[in-house]
């Protein structure tokens, strides 16, 4: 619904007048809001690069100068977080792949293949998106700690594996939890895509003699490549950024298996208060993976957000 600007410029006088009044106002607003959205990020990054003295002396928006500049905060924060980065990625990547695959399968079964009563199942999936996770936290903790202590069951196996340590097994319950609770949103994202595909594609394949699983493998999967991009980006961001499940299932921010989001609220804190240079460095470092993804795939991220909701 954007108004085209192609008609401007024909009548120079009115163009200039319009430009002066409305246009300038619009651009001023746009720039003000850019400032509004970027200021907290900008102050954060600037603070990360300042010495403690410069943090106290200069205004937060100003870049560090001369002696006030330091890499020290970032270095320190990186040391604090490096293990957590591995943990986060080790947990988030398989969890993303799992929930995306299951979501695509469920959406296929609920959208492209028609059968009676599928609306009921769809609604059950939809409710799963909106569920406040608080409603399952106590059961989750009981399940993974008391009823099915998968982490301690896996620990001996993990010890023998290369790359990972025994404590990494604590991330497996978190991974599975993310897969399970990620399925509804991934299903709905894929469903919105599959609904836009013509039903005749599946029908043609059926008449061509393909089975339901062959149709999925040979027709639906290849066609939904772009949507896999969208859902993967969206879901990875969600899981990497998530805090509550990690907080519930991993014992503490000082444990070796803690993920990035779990450690961050504790970095740079001491009895004398918070070292904001270090804290901002850690926050910036923690945000880097999602920032990279966001900058590279902003359109896909926005699409995922639009269809799936916050």
């Amino acid at each position, binding site marked *: 619904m954007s*108004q085209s600007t192609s008609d401007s410029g024909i009548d120079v006088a009115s163009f200039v007048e319009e430009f002066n009044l409305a246009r300038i106002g619009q651009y001023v607003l746009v720039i003000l809001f850019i400032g509004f959205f970027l200021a*907290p990020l900008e102050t954060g990054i600037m603070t990360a690069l300042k010495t403690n003295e410069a943090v106290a002396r200069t205004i937060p928006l100003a870049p560090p100068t001369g002696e006030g500049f330091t890499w020290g905060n970032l270095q320190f924060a990186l040391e604090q977080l490096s293990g957590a980065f591995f943990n986060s990625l080790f947990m988030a990547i398989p969890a993303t792949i799992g929930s995306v695959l299951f979501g695509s399968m469920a959406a296929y079964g609920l959208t492209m*293949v028609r059968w009676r009563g599928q609306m009921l199942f769809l609604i059950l999936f939809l*409710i799963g998106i909106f569920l406040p996770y*608080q*409603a399952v936290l106590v059961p989750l903790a009981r399940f993974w700690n008391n009823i099915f202590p998968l982490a301690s069951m896996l620990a001996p196996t993990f010890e023998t594996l290369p790359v990972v340590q025994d404590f990494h097994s604590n991330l497996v319950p978190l991974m599975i939890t993310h897969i399970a609770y990620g399925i*509804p949103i991934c299903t709905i994202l894929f469903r919105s895509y599959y609904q836009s595909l013509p039903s005749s594609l599946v029908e043609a394949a059926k008449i061509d003699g393909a089975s339901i699983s062959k149709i999925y493998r040979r027709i639906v999967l290849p066609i939904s490549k772009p949507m896999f991009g969208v859902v993967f980006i969206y879901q990875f961001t969600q899981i990497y*950024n998530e805090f509550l499940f990690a907080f519930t299932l991993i014992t503490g921010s000082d444990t070796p298996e803690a993920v990035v989001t779990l450690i961050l609220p504790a970095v740079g804190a001491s009895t004398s208060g918070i070292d904001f240079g270090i804290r901002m460095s850690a926050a910036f470092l923690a945000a880097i993976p999602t920032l990279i993804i966001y900058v590279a795939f902003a359109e896909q991220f926005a699409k995922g957000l639009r269809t799936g909701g916050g």
Partner: protein
Amino acid sequence: MDTHETAEATTTPTEEVDWETKLRYFLNSDFVRSSPFWGIPFLIMGAAVYGGMGFNVAISLTDARGLTPPDYSLGNLDLEMYTQVLGSNAFLQATQNNLVLLVTFTTVCLVLGLFLAVLIDQGIRYDDKVQTIYLLPMSLSFVVTAQMWLWMFNNNNGLLNIIVTAFGFEPVNWIGDPSIALGSIIFALIWQFSGYTMVVYLAGLRSLPDDQFEAARVDGASTVKTYLRIIIPQLKESSVSAAVVLMVFALKAFTFLYALTGRYRPPNGTDILATLMVREAFKFGKWAYAATIATYLMVLALGVIAPYLYYQYRQGSL
């Protein structure tokens, strides 16, 4: 595939179809053949979501706390926790804060998001870049943004107080003062979420046909009038879905509040149901009590979602 043929050929036209044929047809039907595809994810999700919800309600009926495991024997199950929770001041205070957060946060996000969407839709140059910047906070973890706002809110060196003092006012204790802490936090959450509402509204705006705007222009309507009378009423769908997402978020918001302090207790005057629930469970080990708060929370969330889903179902847009 064609091994079925011989058996089926024996069915003569006038005869009743035998049950084996019907069974084989049923086993070949889309419902059965597609069941692994939706069934397996459904079982995993169902166990986690609905199993978890049921488990939670079961725990809320016991008196479980501390290290004693919940006792599910019938004599032990009662609604005692529900009356206890309802009678507690902390719960009532948290509910009140939660409702303030829900209403203010949702309203301002919707209005600001709509304003930004209309602004960007005016044929601004580099509109996609601007949109990317506005949406940027949404790609960050609440843990990250909470740290940045903690710094923004800082008493001595925070940007907000530097601005406030530059105008000659006294520095404000943004998150220390119980009377404004909730407002500060709502402000930060609006900062994070208004990009999302903007994206939803922008998609709605761009799905409207161009000629409506042109027709209104030909009719001599001013831009403001066109938006108020013609365009915005058509964005009802976008408003409803964005509002549902925002309200549900307001109910379950926990991370931002926790990450501001790194402690179970959020800043003064900002305790909401989600933070209260987590604190009761994981700090004090009052499992049954916390499960009860969670159940109330779940009911509130369902109160928002159920009408929405029903509305969508009636519209045929599910």
